[in-house]
């Protein structure tokens, strides 16, 4: 169960999630401090550890559009937040899968800040309103990367197999 801590509109860009001016910081261990940096109040709550892991960000269509910067994923992953969006931009989705960010495509999701959501692979149940929303499944080809624990272990396995 996770509480919705932020509700966002459509076309949230990676500049919004992780501003370009902090892109010289690349390591996943260092990027979480700049998460949604220009949303000052939210960023401050994150930095002060006032938002528990597993909390949910709900977004409308095309979440993560724009730049390919992977910091936009590692910065959210660092706080172990869950993204439930009506749709997700291609590169962001791929980066999220590669880094193991918990991301759910839920085309009909309706939830407000403060609502409690029960998020599973197949559906999202809004415990506050009692409504259930069906998720769009990730293609099977990508599931293999998730099952391997991300693209680094997945590639490592393929590399070792290829060079036996």
């Amino acid at each position, binding site marked *: 169960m996770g509480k919705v801590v932020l509700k966002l509109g459509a*076309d949230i860009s990676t500049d919004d999630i992780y501003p370009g001016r902090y892109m010289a910081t690349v390591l996943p261990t260092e990027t979480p401090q700049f998460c949604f940096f220009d949303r000052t109040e939210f960023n401050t709550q994150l930095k002060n550890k006032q938002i528990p892991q597993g909390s949910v960000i709900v977004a409308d269509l095309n979440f993560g559009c724009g730049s390919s910067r992977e910091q936009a994923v590692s910065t959210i992953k660092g706080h172990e937040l869950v993204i439930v969006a009506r749709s997700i931009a291609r590169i962001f989705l791929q980066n999220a899968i590669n880094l193991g960010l918990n991301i759910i495509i839920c085309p009909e999701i309706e939830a407000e800040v403060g609502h409690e959501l029960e998020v599973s692979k197949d559906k999202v149940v809004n415990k506050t309103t009692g409504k259930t929303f069906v998720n769009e499944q990730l293609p099977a080809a990508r599931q293999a990367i998730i099952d391997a624990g991300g693209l680094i272990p997945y590639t490592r396995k393929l590399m070792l197999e290829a060079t036996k």
Partner: protein
Amino acid sequence: MGMTVVEKILARAAGVPAVKAGDVVEPKVDLAMSHENGALVMNQFKDIYEGTGREARPWDPSKIAIIFDHRVPAEGPKTATNHKKIRDFVGKHGIKKFHDIRGDRGGICHQILPENGYVRPGYVVVGTDSHTTSHGALGAFSFGIGATEMASVWTLGVALNVEVPPTIKVNVTGAFPKFIAPKDLILHLIGKLTAQGANFRVIEFHGETIAKMSTSGRLVICNMSVEAGATSGIVPADAETMRYLRDEAGVTDKIEAVTPDADAVYERVVDIDVSALVPQIACPHTVDNVKPISELEGKKIQQVVIGSCTNGRLDDLQAAYEIIKGKKVAEHTRMLIFPASSRIYAQAMERGYVQEFMKAGAVVMNSGCGPCLGIHQGALGDDEVALATTNRNFKGRMGNPKSEVYLCSPAVAAASAVTGVITDPRKGGN
């Protein structure tokens, strides 16, 4: 069943006779490009080999390109150290397609790759930059990926789990009126498709207007295809592609064009006639918030930027030069010009553009991404407004969430720099 150009490219690269939209393939990569974020790719690459007892060596250094452009020269010690680490890596592994911060061969990656003949029709190109879509202008399937995915490409030489994207065919007809450019076409198309209209899809450009368009113009429309969410834009290779690669990029070896089948299957077809097109402006804070210039005329601007991987090429600078020569940049307005590469910078000097820009009061900066992504070389103050030929106007994009960025063609940018307000270049007399 016929194949689109991207389906043909992916079938060849995956070593299968045919593919269709939705299939999953693992194509061999012909070119893998990174810029400053190569520092993160290196970190992830090292991680893949961690604990395996194997030495981390890229699969084929001749297929890796690294170009410094996002933060050149370095704006601070962190970037300078990233640059240094990448230089060490490049030297260690013998990566030859490396373009450092130099006045003879440096520039923006999406100009350096084409002008050096690194991209060929039929190639599979990946880049750790969303505007890698640009290289579809040369008939390649070229798309942006993240740093970890690039580390995987460096290891295996293939792009893993690529779903063959459906293709939207865009048919462009008519002649561009004076002062109307490929930038107006692509802004108009993005407005029509919306920022997510082509998500997970390819945009394949066709029609008489595209046949007559220079590679420079094709780079503009493929570059910004990603702003409609597209995996890639692509112009199937033709006579102009061959001319560009032979005459401008100096390619001497064999070039094989890949063209779509006549009965290729498209998800949808969009027709655009440019003969009635007016200057287009993308308004804050999304690129699909596109309006005709008549709705914005007279809006005061504090900064004009001409440059970027979208519009920093010689014909863009020429369009600006023809409007600005003999005039002055308005008193309350700053005009910053970034030639897309050192080669273009030198050509602009030979033609007298740079001198004329300076006389007018513009600042001609070094080749690179400049303020487009909000790091340095032209951040905006609170409540300031910029008019730019760049490709994104997201909130905070030019370094300040309390500012606004409007996007336009080079002609609109130059005419507006003279008046200090958004100005329609067709009206002249400014």
